[in-house]
């Protein structure tokens, strides 16, 4: 096994044996389980809380699409914020603790170090999204009696591309900014920029900004063209990782 594979295996074992196995999976599983139930019982909950204050206003009867919308909204906001905060130290934590020195004085290149991290954590995120979507899908079928899969899965997989893009971005920011909080702040700023950029239709149609809004449209069962945003996001993710590897190579440890 070469240095890349050994280091990638270490990353995977580190996920399984540290806090990483609890935080992001815990958040995603929690929202995957609670989303369909909340969607199904929102009218009853609102009615119970508001009492007579609603007057003649009645909430529409929820459908499975409301459960899907809950899942995608939670992915796009809470899960993405958590991801940005967690991965703010993906590289800098190893530089600070001295473990990067332990690894990089062995036959492992700095590019391998960075790429292995992005690859393993992207697979980890993909696994979590698949598990979470399966849970939401199954629970939606139980609660609503019907749950066609295409809208949910297309929305979740398109969001996954955004998630991978942010893992790549946080890797670069973690190389450039030694402070985890500083990198996370910059990541949240980037998220705000992407969300604002999506307001302008050409950017939404052709750039990664589209991934900020399109998963919600897909989850609502709308027909949305996602090819360009997905392609440009993947290209940008690769470019960010290459930039992170280059910057890390030039950095004194």
């Amino acid at each position, binding site marked *: *096994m*070469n*240095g890349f594979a*050994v*280091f990638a*295996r*270490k990353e995977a074992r*580190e996920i399984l*044996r*540290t806090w990483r196995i609890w935080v992001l999976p815990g958040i995603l599983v929690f929202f995957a389980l609670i989303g369909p139930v909340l969607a199904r019982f929102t009218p009853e909950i609102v009615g119970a809380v508001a009492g007579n204050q609603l007057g003649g206003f009645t909430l529409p009867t929820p459908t499975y699409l409301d459960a899907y919308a809950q899942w995608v909204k939670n992915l796009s906001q809470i899960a993405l914020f958590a991801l940005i905060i967690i991965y703010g130290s993906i590289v800098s934590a190893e530089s600070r*603790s*001295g*473990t*990067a*020195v*332990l*690894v*990089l*004085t*062995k*036959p*492992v*290149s700095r590019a391998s170090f960075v790429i292995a991290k992005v690859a393993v954590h992207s697979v980890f995120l993909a696994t979590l999204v698949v598990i979470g979507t399966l849970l939401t899908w199954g629970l939606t079928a139980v609660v609503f009696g019907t749950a066609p899969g295409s809208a949910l899965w297309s929305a979740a997989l398109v969001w996954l591309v955004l998630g991978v893009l942010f893992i790549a971005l946080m890797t670069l920011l973690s190389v450039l900014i030694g402070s985890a909080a500083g990198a996370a702040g910059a990541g949240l700023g980037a998220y705000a920029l992407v969300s604002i950029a999506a307001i302008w239709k050409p950017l939404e149609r052709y750039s990664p900004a589209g991934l900020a809004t399109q998963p919600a449209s897909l989850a609502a069962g709308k027909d949305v063209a996602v090819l360009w945003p997905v392609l440009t996001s993947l290209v940008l993710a690769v470019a960010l990782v290459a930039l992170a590897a280059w910057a890390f190579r*030039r950095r*004194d*440890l």
Partner: protein
Amino acid sequence: MNAAIQTTALTKTYGDKRALDAVDLVVEEGSVFGFLGPNGAGKTTMLRLLTGLACPTSGSVQILGHDVASAGNAVRAEVGFLPDVPGFYDWMTAEELLRFAGGLFGIERRVLDGRVEMLLGLAGLSGVTKKVGGYSRGMKQRLGVAQALVNAPKLLLLDEPTSALDPMGRKDLLDMLTSLRGRTTVFFSTHILDDVERVCDTVAILDRGRVVAQAPIDELKARYGVQKVVVEVTGGADELAAEIGRQTWATAVARGANGAIEVTVADVGAAQRGIPAIVAARQLGLSRLEAGEMGLEEVFVELVGGEQR
């Protein structure tokens, strides 16, 4: 003999501060080389440049015939490194850490099994099952030495390797380094002069980023060392010191601890004959007369200067 390490005009600056200033260094293969210097002299910076962890501002580093800047994995495969404060994955055990380190070198499993067992024994960590996060600083230092040896390196680079060890651990490590002489080139930085005198055959002294001396220890002591005589008498030391100072064989006289007279001499034999005669003529009691060579510590102090100490 080939050079295991050769630096040419190696310079590293951080902003306005020149951490290393045009360092030319040659470390021969198979030697145990001590890299001495006071705190802040640039020893750790030097090791970071040798390992490729930092890039030089100017100059070059050759390790085992390869240029560090371009050779990459080819150099790292032959080198073992212990940083001054080794960092480990806290969630691993010592055995897992050594297997991980060995895996990064691509050592095949059968070889690694035996080597891990041997190194755990060497580090005194056999049978220790708790995770590295719970280790004392000394245990981490010993584990650091073990991981630096996992690839049976041709060149072993150690940054202050004995700083966190107790006396027994320190002795064991120094004995181990001595046993490597001739097989592995050992380059270690330290400010502990006794460690250098015990195990090194060659030494370089670094001061404020510059190598102020580099030579075999005996040659260094002969070059900078002078002989001195220490005298202690029961009384009248001040007058005696003044009279000794007037002798032709005495080049300098200073007062040491407990009223001792420290005489730097040009001819130790003449001093050994002359001092008792002067003491007897003054009818003083002679309680100590000791002649000896200047040690590495005095050489170090002379070269580096007193202001940092």
